[in-house]
């Protein structure tokens, strides 16, 4: 049953034009960067900024919009003998998968036809992994919001605020904390703070890939341990996975008991 809903969802998503625009956006951007910048490593570095800003924003907005629009459709399906958990997974994967596929395809295609080096591929894959995780996380957040607030203005507004908070305000707070408590041993608190924000997590993962030479300039044993060894990579990926499950389960729970 999940598959049936998923199939219908996918057909619906691919029929709409925005997913094509979404693919083209990443495709054209990566291609243009290849044409200007040259090697794949530089392209991946430039794409990093885009991924960290565009993906959370677009995923959460598209996700919220989509669910608000599918409201009647969901209610209709729920009148039929469709289990709620089946419908939820069908709807969730039906949006998250095309978005991930669109992003991954759009970025990787230019790498394919530009015959990028192994090193460039490694960073491209890291980029795609991080972007995909962020997509799924923010789609899940959007689903939660759309289920939590029936008023779509409120839901969309909150989606924007959350996105803004994680991309910009949160880092401002970290910087503020660093300045305020600069005479205290802050290594661990700052690391933990960064782990609590999925965008910061993605950023750290990509920094480990692209800017390790700069990161090694950090003094302090905790940082050295974190960035200089596979520990940093492991912890970041694990935290991202935790981040993935939290909004998904929250949305799922909400969906099971929601009174449409």
């Amino acid at each position, binding site marked *: 049953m999940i598959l049936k809903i998923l199939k219908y969802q996918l057909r619906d998503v691919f029929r709409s034009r925005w997913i094509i625009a979404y693919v083209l956006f990443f495709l054209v951007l990566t291609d243009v960067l290849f044409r200007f910048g040259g090697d794949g490593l530089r392209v991946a570095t430039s794409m990093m900024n885009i991924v960290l800003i565009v993906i959370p924003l677009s995923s959460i907005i598209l996700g919220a919009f989509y669910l608000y629009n599918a409201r009647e459709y969901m209610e209709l399906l729920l009148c039929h003998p469709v289990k709620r958990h089946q419908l939820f997974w069908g709807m969730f994967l039906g949006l998250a998968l095309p978005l991930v596929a669109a992003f991954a395809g759009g970025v990787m295609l230019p790498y394919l036809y530009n015959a990028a080096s192994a090193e460039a591929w490694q960073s491209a894959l890291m980029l795609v992994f991080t972007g995909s995780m962020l997509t799924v996380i923010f789609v899940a957040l959007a689903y939660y919001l759309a289920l939590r607030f029936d008023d779509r203005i409120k839901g969309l507004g909150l989606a924007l605020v959350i996105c803004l908070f994680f991309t910009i305000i949160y*880092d401002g707070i970290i*910087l503020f904390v660093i*300045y305020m408590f600069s005479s205290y041993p802050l290594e661990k608190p700052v690391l933990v703070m960064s782990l609590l924000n999925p965008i910061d997590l993605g950023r750290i993962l990509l920094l480990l890939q692209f800017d390790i030479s*700069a990161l090694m*300039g950090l003094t302090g044993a905790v940082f050295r341990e974190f960035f200089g060894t596979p520990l940093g990579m492991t912890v970041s990926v694990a935290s991202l996975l935790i981040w993935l499950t939290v909004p998904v389960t929250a949305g799922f729970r909400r969906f099971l008991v929601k009174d449409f």
Partner: protein
Amino acid sequence: MHCKCNISLGMIPALLAAFVAGGMPAYATHGLSPHSEIISKNSESISESAAEITEANVLSSPMLDEGNSIGNGSGDSGRSLTVGQRGEFTRIADALSAAAYGDTIRIEAGVYREYELLVDRQVTILGIGRPVIDVEHRGEGIRITAENVHVEGLEIRNVPTSHSRDHAAIRFDRASGGKVIDNVLDDTFFGIYLARAHDMEIRGNRLRAYHDREAVSANGIHLWNSNNAVIADNEIIGHRDGIYLEYVQESSITGNKVAENIRYGLHFMFSDDCVYRDNRFEKNGAGVAVMYSRRVKMKHNLFVNNWGASSYGLLLKEITDSEIFENEFSGNTIGIRSEGSDRVKKYRNSFIRNGWAIRIMASSMDNHITENNFIDNAFDVSTNSRRHSRNNFEGNYWDKYSGYDLNGDGFGDVPYRPVRLFSLIVERNPMALMLLRSMFVQILDLTERVMPTITPETLVDEKPLMRKVAL
């Protein structure tokens, strides 16, 4: 050429004689057996006849002549002593004490368990087929106290760490004009150690050490008070400092590959008028440090992947009137850190993918930084000074430059400020580095770039290049 045919000609009748006499292989002997006497007599007579041949062919065959001169060293007596199981000597020490001025000691392949070999007269020591001198952690390898000694083709192993003596594989002690060529030094404390040895040539050696702490390791090539040295084409891995120079004047360091040393790849102090060219410094603990020297030229070197909080591609401390050009700095935490260094010209270098391309401290003055490429660095320039920069940045290519060139002269019309606000933040609060590439930080940088208030006003490139400098 001549050496080879000398030996082979010598060996054939010798072996034949040995078989005829006793039917027993000659190489099992230990110096005093009758067979070896036969051998050495035979080889002497043969080498005499070989010498005659050489003299006869001198005009027609320059190759032979060349071989002959190497074989004889630069001396005039020019005897050739052979060490080996089939030679006149089985121990190198015996050959050294038997040798006279200008002799050549040929050491045949094999393992010689000897140490503290003293060379106190001018000889040429040649390894044939890379003989191994295994010191077995007992002391020093070779100590040379005579002028113009030539050491070539040896492998020296297992020189022990000592906290009271500077054990070296090869040490020149107040002995100038020597040559150390094509040797392999494996697991040594100091590798090649020159003290008051001038006009030396150290070429094509491979040095490898395996320690992991500074306290128990020593320098690969160590020069103290030795002028006019040529250090070329060596490979130095795993020592404390790869190449260390102190009070060395007018020397050239060329084409060396220095990697994975615990402290500095190249470390020099109080060494004026030296030239460094075409070297590769990679993954050394703290990169390359040059200190307290004047008129240094560094050209076409490669500084790669030196990572760490106090690690530099190149650390300049109290360096004056020097030139650094056509080098490539890539993937270092800090490309160049400049402290108290004045009148240094840095031009036509590439800074690629470093954490910081250049960190120039307020104590540095009158440096000229022109025609360099700055590409994909997290920070192009950082400084600890808030107000003034007394250094001249002009005509560099900055990949982050976003200005325009209306008059088409190749220079951007808007000045470029290479110091980001964020780099000042990091300078004061290193932990903020965690926020690198964050959107928030980029917004901060942007506002500062639009209205510069905090970054130093005078640190600016008035004529940023629109295109990369072709190198």
